[in-house]
C-alpha cells in the first residue's frame, strides 16, 4: 500500500518538501545541541525539564485520543466512525513517534539510551512509560495497517486482528496514566503531587486529540476526494465539548484545593503561572492565552448552532488544541519547577535552537502523518464505498 504515497499531486510533494526542509533545519540545530550539550536550550539547574518534555507530555495525549474514535466503533458498533477509525489510528502512530523523539532529544547522553533496556529498572516509572509507548505504537501500526489493507481488498478485516484491537483500546489510557505517574509520584513537587493528575491528563488528551482529528478530517475532505462524513465530525465535536468541560473543571478543582487551603507550596506554582511570583511573570501571557482560548472554545462548543456549523467547529477545535498545547507544553512541566526546591524562582524560556529542534520533531511527525494519510485516503478513494455500502467519496 505504501507505493500510493509515491504518487501525488504537486501540492502533496510541496508539503513533503516543506516538512523535509523543516526536519533538515531542526536536524542541523540538533547536531549543534549534540556537540555543545543541552546548555543550548533554556533549561537550567532549576528548570531541568521544559519544552521538550512538555511536547512529549502533550503528544502522549494526542496519541491516546485515537481511542475516542476506535472505542465507540469497535465496542459499541458506532458505524459512523467506520470510515475514520484508520485516520485515528494513523494519528496515533506519528504522535507516539514524536513522543519518543522528544524524549530522545531531551537526553543528555542520547547514545546511551539503550541503557534503559540493558539495565531494566521496574521501580522507575520511565521504564513502564517506555513499555506502554512502544506497545501502543506497535498495536496501532498493526491494527491500522491490517484494517486498511482489508478495506483495499474489499474484504472484512481478518479475525485474528480482533484481540489486538481490544488490547489497543485498553492500552490507550495506560499511556496517559503512566505518563502522569512520571510527575504525580514525586515528593516535593507540589504542583505535580496530585492524585487528579492522571485524570486531568485523560480529560485533556480526550479533548486535544479528537480536536486534532476534527481538523484533520476537514483538511482531508478539502484536499482529497475522501469524505470522513459529517456525522462523524459532529460526534467528535460532542466528544470534545464534554472532555473540554471536564478538563476545565479539573483545573478548577486544583485551583480550589490550592487557594482554599492557602497552603503556600500549593499556591505558588499557580501564582507563578497566572499572576507571576516575586515579580517574575514570563509565563503569565501564555497561560492567559491558554485560558482565553479555552473560554472561546467552550462558548463555541456549548452553543449547538455553532457546534453544528463546521466553520465554527473548526475554530473551536483549533482553540481547544492550542489551549491545551500551552497548558501541557508550557504550564504543566515548567510550573512544576517554579518555584524550585528552595522556593526560589529561576525562569525559563525556550531558545532559538530549542524551538527549531522542537519544530523539526513536529515536522517528522507531520511527515509521517502526511504519508500515512496519503495512503489511507488513496485507498478510500479507490474503494469508493465504505464497509456499510455508503459512498465515502465526495460527489
Amino acid at each position: 500500500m505504501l507505493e500510493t504515497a509515491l504518487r501525488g499531486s504537486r501540492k502533496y510533494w510541496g508539503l513533503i518538501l516543506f516538512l523535509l526542509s523543516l526536519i533538515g533545519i531542526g536536524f542541523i540545530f540538533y547536531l549543534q545541541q549534540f556537540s555543545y550539550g543541552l546548555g543550548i536550550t533554556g533549561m537550567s539547574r532549576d528548570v531541568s525539564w521544559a519544552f521538550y518534555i512538555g511536547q512529549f507530555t502533550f503528544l502522549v495525549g494526542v496519541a491516546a485520543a485515537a481511542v475516542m474514535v476506535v472505542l465507540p466503533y469497535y465496542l459499541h458498533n458506532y458505524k459512523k466512525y467506520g470510515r475514520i477509525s484508520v485516520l485515528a489510528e494513523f494519528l496515533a502512530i506519528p504522535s507516539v513517534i514524536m513522543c519518543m523523539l522528544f524524549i530522545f532529544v531531551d537526553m543528555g547522553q542520547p547514545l546511551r539510551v539503550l541503557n534503559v533496556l540493558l539495565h531494566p529498572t521496574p521501580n522507575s516509572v520511565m521504564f513502564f512509560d517506555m513499555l506502554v509507548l512502544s506497545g501502543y505504537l506497535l498495536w496501532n501500526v498493526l491494527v491500522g495497517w491490517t484494517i486498511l489493507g482489508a478495506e483495499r481488498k474489499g474484504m472484512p478485516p481478518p479475525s485474528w486482528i480482533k484481540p489486538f484491537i481490544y488490547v489497543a483500546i485498553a492500552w490507550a489510557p495506560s499511556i496517559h496514566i503512566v505518563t502522569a505517574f512520571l510527575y504525580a509520584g514525586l515528593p516535593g513537587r507540589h504542583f505535580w503531587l496530585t492524585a487528579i493528575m492522571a485524570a486531568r491528563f485523560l480529560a485533556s488528551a480526550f479533548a486535544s486529540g479528537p480536536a486534532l482529528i476534527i481538523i484533520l478530517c476537514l483538511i482531508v475532505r478539502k484536499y482529497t476526494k475522501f469524505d470522513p462524513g459529517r456525522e462523524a465530525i459532529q460526534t467528535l465535536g460532542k466528544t470534545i465539548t464534554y472532555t473540554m468541560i471536564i478538563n476545565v473543571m479539573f483545573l478548577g478543582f486544583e485551583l480550589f484545593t490550592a487557594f482554599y487551603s492557602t497552603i503556600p507550596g500549593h499556591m505558588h506554582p499557580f501564582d507563578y503561572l497566572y499572576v507571576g511570583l516575586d515579580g517574575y511573570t514570563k509565563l503569565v501571557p501564555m497561560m492567559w492565552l491558554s485560558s482565553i482560548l479555552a473560554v472561546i472554545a467552550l462558548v463555541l462548543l456549548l452553543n449547538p448552532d455553532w457546534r453544528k456549523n463546521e466553520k465554527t467547529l473548526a475554530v473551536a477545535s483549533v482553540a481547544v488544541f492550542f489551549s491545551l498545547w500551552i497548558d501541557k507544553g508550557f504550564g504543566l512541566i515548567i510550573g512544576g519547577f517554579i518555584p524550585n526546591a528552595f522556593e526560589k524562582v529561576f525562569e525559563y524560556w525556550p531558545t532559538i535552537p530549542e524551538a527549531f529542534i522542537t519544530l523539526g520533531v513536529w515536522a517528522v511527525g507531520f511527515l509521517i502523518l502526511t504519508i500515512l494519510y496519503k495512503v489511507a485516503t488513496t485507498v478510500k478513494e479507490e474503494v469508493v464505498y465504505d464497509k456499510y455500502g455508503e459512498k465515502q467519496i465526495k460527489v
Partner: protein
Amino acid sequence: MSINRRQFLKIASISTIVGLGGAGAFDLLQRNWLEAAQFSPDPKALTAKRWGMVVDVSKLKTEDDYKTITDACHRVHNVPDFGNPKDEIKWIWTETYGHTFPGQEDEYMAEDIKHKPFLVLCNHCNNPPCVRVCPTKATFKRKDGIVMMDMHRCIGCRFCMAGCPFGARSFNWRDPRPFIKEENKEFPTRMRGVVEKCTFCYERLAKGLIPACVEASQEAAKKAGTKPGLVFGDLSDPDSEVRKILSLHFSIRRKSELGTQPSVYYIIGGNDHA
C-alpha cells in the same frame, strides 16, 4: 534424517536467540549478587552501615568558614565554575534558613538565624526518591547508605533532578572541563550530559579519610580554637559521635515530612558541648 538449508537456518537462529536470552536472564539474576570492585578494600577504609552528617550551624561563624568548606569540596571533586546560574554545578553551598527549610520561616524568628547561611548538600536519604525514579540504576544506594552516581551509566534524562526534593543535583549542561580551575588528577572529571552531586566523598572514605568538607571544617575549627561545625559518622552506631550529638541536642532535617529520611541533620541552637 536430512534437513534442508531453510530448516537448518531456522533451527540455528532459534537456538541462538534462546541461548542469548537464557544467558541474559542468568546474567540478570546474578547481577545483584556481585559487588564490583577492582581491588581488595583498603584495610584503613572507613566503613559504616549508614553514613550521616550533623551540621551545627552555631559553630560556623564567618563567611570564610563556609567558603573554606565549599571550596574544599569543589576543588577535590573538579566541580566547574561557569559563573552563571543557568549552567551552575554545585555539590555543597549555602542557603538562608527560609530557603533551606521552606515553610518553616517565621516573621518573628531571631534575625541572626533568619540571615545565617545554612550549608546544603545531598541528604543521602535512607529512602531516596532519586534512586527510585532512575531508569538505569545509574544512581543507587550503597550498603553504607551513600547515594551514589555512576556517571558512565547515566543517560542524562534528569528524572532524578525532578525527583529530588532538595535541589541537590546538578546537570552538565555543557562540557565542564574548560571551567575547572585547577584539575585534581586523583578524581575523575565529568563529561557533558550527565547528572552529578555530593557523594559523601566515597573515594576518601575508601582510603580512610573523612569527607573533604568535614576535614575543612575541622581544620578551620582547630585554627579558631573551637569545635567543628560539621560532624560525620555512622548513624546506625549508637556510640558514634553523630549519634551522641543527636541524643543531646534538638535537631531538624530538611523536609522530613516527605519521608525520604535525610541523613543530614541540622542543629541550630547548639552549645559548646556539641
